[in-house]
């Protein structure tokens, strides 16, 4: 498992020779995939909607501290067919692992190449301290017009330049026009902006802080992904078929990959979120193990086939096997939360009556 205090970020670097690296296995994008076993042993990867062969977007080397998964590679495939692109099943993710150092076998299937005109890119990594990350997140929530800024927190605003705003403020103070009494500003804190997508603003902020980063990796049960948008945030509840544990978030691929590959211009999703089994089980002797991937798009036309929309909530859940009892429990929890919120609102109103 990854150290909880680190988040690893991946950038694309152009290179001629992919295998000349210090890692045991390569992490790279756009090219013939390097499988750990002979590709005749499994079927070539095809789109579930249209049946065409999918292209490999990237593969990354993600070893774990466990013996059976010390050489572990994750492959992300996608289908470029226009009709499929509005569907979540146009992307698929697979995992290959082995105990000893495997032989790297390059695929001979040229259909796997995403962008034949471009060269291949290596994925270069950078580590971010999670505390710094959290601090930047708080700064972003404080300064961007999101709706999340209700809690008390200590925000460190050292790195922020306020030159422009200082000028505006000084002009405002100096202006000789009549100003109405400032204390008449109503004490209401909560002013909801209904059409502003707060999550997107924070996402955009992080992408400008670490420009052009493609992959954001933090494989931990408590790690939270950086969501692309407020709408359609899922509750991923798919389970590993072997150990029956809930899959946890491993990494996400951001929209910025589109600047490198013009073939991806028409794609609808904003970011891809990959969830995998926490103990990286070897499921039933399969060579290629499929994991869950969620393509996040804020457009209503985008379909996820396993989606079940609960009419009581705005959250959308991706799950195949969910018993009725669990559903009832979740509904009860939501009702309790609503009741608590109502009580808080009532208390606020009481205070206003003074």
């Amino acid at each position, binding site marked *: 498992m990854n*150290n909880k205090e680190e988040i690893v970020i991946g950038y694309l670097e152009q290179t001629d020779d992919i295998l000349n690296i210090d890692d045991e296995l390569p992490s790279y994008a756009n090219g013939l995939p390097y499988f750990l076993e002979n590709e005749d042993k499994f079927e070539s990867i095809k789109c579930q909607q249209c049946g065409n062969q999918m292209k490999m977007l990237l593969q*990354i*080397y993600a070893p774990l501290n466990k013996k059976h998964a010390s050489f572990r590679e994750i492959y992300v495939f996608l289908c470029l067919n226009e009709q499929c692109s509005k569907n979540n099943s146009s992307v698929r993710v697979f995992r290959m692992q082995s105990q000893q150092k495997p032989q790297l076998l390059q695929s001979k299937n040229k259909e796997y190449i995403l962008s034949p005109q471009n060269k291949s890119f290596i994925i*270069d990594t950078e580590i971010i301290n999670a505390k710094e990350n959290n601090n930047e997140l708080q700064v972003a929530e404080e300064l961007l017009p999101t709706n999340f800024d209700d809690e008390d927190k200590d925000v460190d605003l050292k790195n922020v330049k306020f030159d*422009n705003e200082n000028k505006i403020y000084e002009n*405002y103070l100096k202006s000789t026009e009549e100003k109405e009494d400032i204390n008449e500003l*109503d004490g209401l804190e909560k002013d909801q902006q209904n059409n*502003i997508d707060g999550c997107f603003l924070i996402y955009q902020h992080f992408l400008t802080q670490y420009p052009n980063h493609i992959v954001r990796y933090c494989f931990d049960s408590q790690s939270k992904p950086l969501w692309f948008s407020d709408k359609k945030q899922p509750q991923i509840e798919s389970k590993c078929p072997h150990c029956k544990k809930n899959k946890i978030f491993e990494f996400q691929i951001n929209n910025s990959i589109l600047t490198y590959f013009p073939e991806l211009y028409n794609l609808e999703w904003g970011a891809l979120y990959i969830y995998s089994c926490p103990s990286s089980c070897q499921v039933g002797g399969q060579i290629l193990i499929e994991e869950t991937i969620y393509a996040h798009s804020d457009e209503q036309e985008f379909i996820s086939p396993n989606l079940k929309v609960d009419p009581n909530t705005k959250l959308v859940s991706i799950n195949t096997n969910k018993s009725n009892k669990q559903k009832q429990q979740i509904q009860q929890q939501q009702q309790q939360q609503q009741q608590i919120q109502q009580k808080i609102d009532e208390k606020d109103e009481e205070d206003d009556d003074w």
Partner: protein
Amino acid sequence: MAEQEQQQAPAVEQEQAAPVEKKGFGRGGRGQRERREGGAPRQNRGPRRFGGEQEWTPLTKLGRLVKAGKIKSLETIFQFSIPIKEYQIVDHFLKNLKEEPLALGPVQKQTCAGQRTRFKAYVVVGDNHQHIGLGWKSAKEVQGAIKGAVINAKLNLIPVRKGYWGNKIAQPHTVPCKVTGKEGSVRVRLVPAPRGTGIVAAITSKKVLQMAGIQDCYTQSKGSTRTRSNFLKATFHALKETYNFLTPDLWGHTKLESTPFQEHSEYLAALK
């Protein structure tokens, strides 16, 4: 015993050796690029600043089209009611946007540890011609509140329709018809006025109307206009109504046009 010890020793050595050698995702690889020979070093990012003068890489489809120069003006975006999610799009089209705070004051919230005071800023953004945006934000420092409010205002930008009071000569100068906007208990009514009247309104809404580019207007307001936030928002909604009103000159049939996404997807597909 000796055999067991021997068997245990190599196993331990392997585990100890493993974390040192392995890199890649999951173990936190360092910039492997630096070790490779003949590779250009990655651009040094330097100390990270909020926002700053970094180049804008678009994240939405609309952003990509705007940056590529395929969309000629903001009116195309307004025509198809496409939501603007990136404020850099507005900056791209309107270079002479002015930002003006209209209300800056402290607001308080009761907590178990006393009162928590923050500053709330209402900022109006406009080009004095035909676009206006109103944004608000509360933050711990005044400057932070202004910054957030400016971004909010740019995302809330609307076009303003202007018309004539009487003879249709020279450029439009007033509201096309009587429009009203409401927020809370405040009702603001904008009435067309003859040329040269100027804006007949309270200071707060006068500023908003000036930045929207309206030269002459009569106003009537009702309700508790002392609540600045509601008064500003009511004026803003009234201006929004100008393009919602169906006037007789819009009665004619209009041709169905394809959205910018459809129009340019064919162009982009031709790239393949």
